[in-house]
């Protein structure tokens, strides 16, 4: 691979919930916050919709990182969808560690009013993934 650590543009797939994080991302845009363009957002109605298979598929298809955004605990539009998401992501991390894809999945609770936090998180995450280097699965795909 030509792309080395720190010197590549990571592709990050973001799964965000319709009610909080997606709206937060919208706010970041309308209030002209700057953040790196590495994220590709996919809107879901609720973070509870996230199946670990979505994350695996994103990684398998060459995503360098996966971001999951949902409402703050207790603020879920569907009452407890984000609790399910939180537990599933925690469980998924344990196997991703064993698969050798540690630290590539990050979750964050961002409400519709936290455009700032969204932009900040994107910056941090792009930086973290750059440090980690390209997804090792990419060698097989590209």
């Amino acid at each position: 691979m030509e792309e080395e650590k720190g010197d590549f543009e990571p592709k990050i797939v973001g799964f965000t919930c319709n009610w909080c994080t997606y709206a937060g991302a919208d706010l970041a845009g309308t209030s002209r916050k700057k953040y790196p363009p590495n994220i590709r957002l996919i809107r879901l109605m609720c973070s509870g919709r996230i199946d670990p298979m979505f994350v695996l598929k994103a990684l398998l298809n060459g995503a360098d990182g996966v971001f999951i955004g949902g409402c703050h605990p207790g603020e879920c539009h569907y009452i407890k969808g984000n609790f399910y998401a939180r537990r599933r992501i925690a469980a998924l991390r344990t196997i991703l560690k064993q698969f050798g894809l540690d630290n590539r999945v990050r979750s964050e609770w961002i409400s519709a009013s936290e455009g700032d936090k969204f932009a900040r998180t994107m910056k941090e995450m792009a930086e973290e993934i750059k440090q980690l280097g390209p997804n090792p699965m990419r060698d097989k795909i590209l």
Partner: protein
Amino acid sequence: MEEEKKEPKKKIKIALYWAATCGGCDVATLDIEEKILDVINIADIVLWPVAMDFKYEDVEKMEPKSIDVCLFNGAVRNSEHEEIAKMLREKSKVMIAFGSCACFGGIPGLGNVANREQIFKVAYKDTPSTVNPEFVTPQTEMMTNGGEKLTLPEFWNTVKTLDQTVDVDYYVPGCPPTVDRINDAVGILAKFAETGELPPKGAVVAFDKNLCDECERKRDEEKKIKRIYRPHELKEIDPEKCLLDQGILCMGLATRGGCGARCVNANMPCRGCYGPSPEIKDHGAAVLSAIASILGVEDEAEMIDIGTPEEVEELLNQVKDPLGTFYRFTLPSSMLKRVIIKPEKGGET
């Protein structure tokens, strides 16, 4: 095989082969008891390495598509398995992946957590009973003093399933497939011998519903696991109550039914040998997702930290070897297929 020529009908030809497997599937074939005579009545066996003395050359000489049905058990672990799988595919009209190893990789598929170098190191050096100071490992070729070249199959880094190697028509999952399902498969063979009819390609000889549908244990509507136990850690397991309700990790909730719920009836949790339920691409991820959903964590709304709450972490830490538990039979057929090993430590295929 000695048989009388009383049947005017032409018998079908079947081949049975074993690749990376324990041989349990071949034994299971004999578990159908007197039904084996039905098999002999309708079929001639042309290859069965575990029981009969046919050579690969005998099969090689046959015309393409001259074997009617091939029952292939075992995962594809080395170059010999691949070679024979390709040869049998060419010679057979119908290829059946028989047993979990051929269907999903099975227990040998767990070898995908390591690569060849690591496996050789453990098997030929690190095991306590091994004395091998020069670290001699199997070579694919060597010359004898007489100038004769000897060859061995090449051991691969990654275990593959049969359908990742050749085109597969039907699947008979199970470790090993249960007698009822083998009888179903024999029924398919019999029908084929008689009428030439076959089920649609890709059919799985098992049920389309998951194991919970067959299981007779009583379950709570609102499941909450407060602590995860391994079966030996509990003094007594209630034979009437759902194993998950008792804190034992049972894979039945995302595993295909058809086995007759034998393990759960014997008070042991399902380990998932029948593979994922239909439409599930990744068995481990499906079970993991389901188990994570029923973890019993109190007052979750109070836990407003970004990260994983301690209670959840603690519960998950009670699962020893999550990858080996959730992907016990299906690692090579899962989405990620194998563990990623960094090139510094050894090659990766």
